[in-house]
């Protein structure tokens, strides 16, 4: 596992090579020599990882500013109603567009009525670096809500991007620990935002503080430290 800097060549070779975040394939147009292996470059600074058989490569880094990528679930705040849809802020450089019909069971007569300032949990359906990202509030295959849509009540916590990815890993300690201590409802957005809901304000504040403490950007507390923090507020 080596550390790479942006612009470094990466020795990634496989028949079915899949490049994850942070790697880009440079398209070489060379007339004289026939290159068998196209050159792969890193675009972010971080540690280089690859899967066991070498077919999947990616760069793992920690950042706070989100760059949208397709098929990622994000939490957005509605900023403006625009024509048939909404403009949603997801923390990226541009606001995203969410069409009014991109909800389960929505028809032209029956569109959801989202107010400015409401939170939504959506999936990025289209993300290119020069265009505004687009969101959808249903699952791609089943066309059903599957948890996407408006988030009511609760509270929004901001955190680093690496913590969001870690929370989606079922082996991470934090969510089972929190779930064993409080009744908890949580939505993880990969843009550095988490929505949490619990029975009363004290629990929500305790959960928010535990999440901020376990953030690798801030203190990166381990399991025992978080448990002590929660038991002795």
């Amino acid at each position: 596992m080596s550390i790479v800097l942006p612009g470094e060549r990466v020795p990634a070779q496989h028949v079915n090579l899949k490049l994850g975040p942070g790697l880009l394939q440079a398209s070489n147009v060379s007339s004289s020599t026939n290159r068998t292996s196209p050159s792969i470059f890193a675009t972010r600074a971080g540690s280089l990882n690859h899967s066991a058989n070498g077919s999947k490569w990616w760069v793992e880094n920690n950042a706070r500013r989100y760059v949208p990528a397709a098929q990622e679930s994000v939490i957005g705040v509605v900023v403006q109603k625009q024509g048939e849809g909404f403009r949603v802020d997801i923390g990226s450089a541009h606001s995203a567009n969410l069409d009014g019909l991109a909800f389960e069971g929505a028809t032209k007569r029956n569109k959801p009525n989202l107010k400015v300032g409401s939170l939504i949990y959506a999936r990025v359906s289209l993300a290119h670096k020069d265009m505004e990202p687009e969101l959808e509030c249903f699952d791609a295959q089943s066309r059903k809500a599957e948890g996407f849509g408006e988030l009511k009540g609760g509270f929004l916590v901001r955190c680093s991007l690496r913590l969001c990815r870690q929370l989606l890993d079922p082996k991470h300690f934090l969510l089972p620990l929190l779930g064993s201590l409080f009744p908890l409802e949580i939505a993880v957005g990969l843009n550095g935002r988490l929505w949490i809901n619990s029975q009363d304000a004290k629990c929500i504040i305790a959960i928010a503080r535990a999440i901020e403490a376990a953030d690798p950007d801030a203190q990166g507390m381990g399991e025992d430290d978080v448990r002590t923090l929660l038991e002795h507020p």
Partner: protein
Amino acid sequence: MRPPSPSIPEKDFLFSALKQGLRLDGREFLETRPVTLTFGPELGWVECSLGKTRVLTQVDAKMVKPPPERPFEGFITIHSELSPMASSEFELGRPSEEEVMITRMLDKVIRRSDVVDKESLCILSGQRVWHLRLNVHCLSDSGNLLDCVCLAGIVALKHFRRPDVEVVGEDVTVHPPTFRAPIPLSLHHNPYCFTFAFFSDTSLNPVLDPNLLEQRLNGGLISIALNAQRELCVVQKSGGVPLEPGDILKIVNVAAVKAKDLDAFVESRLQEDWEGRKIEIR
């Protein structure tokens, strides 16, 4: 890009928590975040952090010709520009309302309240004076940048040492720090700034040292700059919900107590740092 206002769940939760007397990070209403001061390799280089809000300041001095209307005084200029490094809501070249307020307040607290004794900065009247330059860089904004910036500025001025200068007749010799020990600046007093946020719902008490969400949802901010000798330097309240005189006096009293504690803390940190450096050989 204007900062998006907080979402409805955040707003509702903040107000319901404040009604129950709870702040989002578990502090009391009148408790500040822990202050950390880090001193850099050079004298006058200070990084101040109030919780997650971080500011870096640096003091520089050079000799210049004074303006003809004030030949006996040196002068001090403050340079602060909020870049998107602090937060994605700031833009370079287009100062937001908050940035203008911070620049003006910093000017009032450090320049107009006469912190630095300007006559002591004079070397040769009419020809050579010291021009002090205070550079402020905001590294991270997690609420209450103003207090952090003012604190970092004052501590940097206290930490800075200027080179020793000898004047013989019309000759001015600047001694390098290796030859003669540099001299601290002569400061009249040390003002510290405290910001309180209060809310449109007047049943909620004002909150000291607001974090980012409390600052965005405030119904008004009042900033008080005073020194440890209970002398008020600046009281700034721009707009917002009207306050009773009794409330303001309560706030001023709280700020006076905090100023004393903060002054003691700053002095102890400066003392610790001074013992770790080898500036003078006795």
